[in-house]
């Protein structure tokens, strides 16, 4: 995975509370036997116009459809962002669309767990700071970008203001080193091999 050290990006605000994984990607968009290509289904319910079940063009007033946000790679969110069903498709859809970080007031527990393991940085900031970020980026999102520095644990608003944040140490490690959770564990492959070798001797009946 691409390591996450610093990122500068266009910020798209969806500062609503309880944006659930169903809204992030409706179940009808999850038909594929793959994690890829799900970006098309991101926020499908709000992003597209429908004729029955068929998509018929984009909804002009949805934030991601506005020209000034078309390069968005950071999202701003409200409380309990990503709550609801544990479907990891929500995170896959965000990553596939090109989102690198989400800054919200708080996150759904499972969603948060799914973010780091897929290389998506999830940052919690107090409500006032989220509002400040929204205000300072909104007038010209393409030039008023935010800078996220994971090493320092800081988000810098276009106005120059700096907000610090903390994330779980293991998540930080994985993101900084571009390790997904499998690579993170594979670092301990020696121990796994040693464990199974000696375990096979103590519990031979457990091995097929």
């Amino acid at each position, binding site marked *: 995975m691409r390591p996450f050290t610093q990122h500068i990006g266009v910020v798209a605000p969806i500062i609503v509370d309880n944006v659930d994984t169903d809204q992030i990607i409706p179940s009808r968009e999850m038909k594929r036997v*793959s994690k890829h290509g799900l970006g098309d289904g991101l926020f499908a319910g709000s992003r597209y116009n429908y004729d029955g079940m068929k998509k018929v063009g984009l909804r002009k007033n949805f934030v991601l459809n506005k020209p000034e946000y078309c390069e968005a790679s950071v999202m701003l969110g409200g409380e309990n962002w990503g709550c609801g069903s544990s479907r990891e498709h929500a995170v896959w859809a965000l990553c596939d669309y090109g989102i690198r970080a989400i800054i919200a007031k708080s996150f759904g527990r499972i969603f948060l767990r*799914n973010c780091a393991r897929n290389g998506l940085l999830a940052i919690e900031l107090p409500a006032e700071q989220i509002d400040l970020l929204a205000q300072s980026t909104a007038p010209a999102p393409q030039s008023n970008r935010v800078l996220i520095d994971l090493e320092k644990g800081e988000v810098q608003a276009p106005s120059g203001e700096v907000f610090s944040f903390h994330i779980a140490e293991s998540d930080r490690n994985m993101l900084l080193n571009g390790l997904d959770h499998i690579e993170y564990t594979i670092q301990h492959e020696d121990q796994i091999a040693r464990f199974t070798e000696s375990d096979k001797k103590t519990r031979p009946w457990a091995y097929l």
Partner: protein
Amino acid sequence: MKQTLFDKIWDSHVVKELDDGTSLIYLDRIFIHERTGSIALTSLKDQGRPVRNPAHVFATMDHIVDTLPGRGDSTLMPGGEEFIKTMRVEANDAGLTLFDINDPRHGITHIISAEQGITLPGLVAACPDSHTCTLGGLGAIGWGVGTSDCEHALATETLRAVKPKQLRVRFDGELRPGVTAKDMVLHLIGKYTASGARGHAMEYAGPAVEALDIEARFTLCNMAVEFSAFTGIIAPDEKTISYVQGRPYAPAGEAWQQSLEFWNSLQSDSDAVFDKEISIDCADIAPTISWGTSPEHSIPVTAVVPELDHAVSEETRDQMRSAMEYMGLEPGQALIGLPIDGAFIGSCTNARLSDLRAAATILDGKKVAKHVRAICTPGSRLIKEAAEAEGIDEIFLDAGFEWREPGCSLCFNAGGESFGPEQRVVTSTNRNFRGRQGRKTRSHLASPASVAAAAIAGRIADVREMS
């Protein structure tokens, strides 16, 4: 000393304590199914990562597969066939053991994992499915995971996790006539809420649990996740050992003797300390049924839908009100006598031979009410054949039940089938969530015998009056 049953298994599987407070836990077995397993396998392949130990990985098709007689790969579920075909290709490529649709060992994941002797007492078995906790009935740690964790499991034979806290639920006394393991667990969740065991691994203990046969123990453990437990587990005993002995993947010869030694040590020490304890007197348990849209909305079948002012908080009251609206019920309304449209006996909760026998006892020589669509889906092909050898299929068919091929079936809309909007269904499954068995379908969870009783009466009935 001072170890719980869960500690003994968990601690013996710690590969390493990591500096972030999690433990790296070795997994003895991994079981996958076509709905989530197919994605995990494809994704691993995309990353160029092999399955670390294919000998310990098993796969089946239960979630999407059709259960109508004469089925093939196609299902009514849009795009379903692709999952089935992908699973077949990927499982073969990865070198796993696949119990394909027409394999004589085919069936619902958690049922066949035990039936084949794949999961054994004292093992840690993971599966990308929340009802993996079922396997606790054998005294194993059944660990339900998401797709990413499943990939991690397949690639590394381990999972990373913080050890959960521990809860012991004791069932004292004896079950009264007509009361089953399903009623025990619905009673438990009804009393202590659907989040009663959040953050805890749960051990079921006490004389009434010891008295249960292994199949009933699976039912009890199956619904641990509906109680929000990390998993449910029961100490193995003589019954467990005779259940396991001679199963295809169970150890034999010298290995069998070694396994017995370990299994005999698998009880919580008398001085073990649990973070939380609950005890229930079985004399208080009646045949139990759910009225609402969460398993915690469970009450004795003879009771009435609760009054809203009994709710402890505003939030609970709102949830109850909306559940009643969805279910087409009023506070204070009796459940007995409510006309039903459907009856379903199946799922990893209650589709084993003893469940089918219990239902057949009620159905024998009787007819399902005309307006009721009744379906029975045995949990595995071996169960189906064993039932057929006893003539149980005849009893079901004569009564007017459909007799299906194994799979998850109408537990959720597996195979793309569902009951209709506002149809009231009594079901032996584990989840009565909104839309679980069809858009706007109203599901009432109950034991297989209670489902059979309702199917015959054409309305919700007290099984004690039918037997």
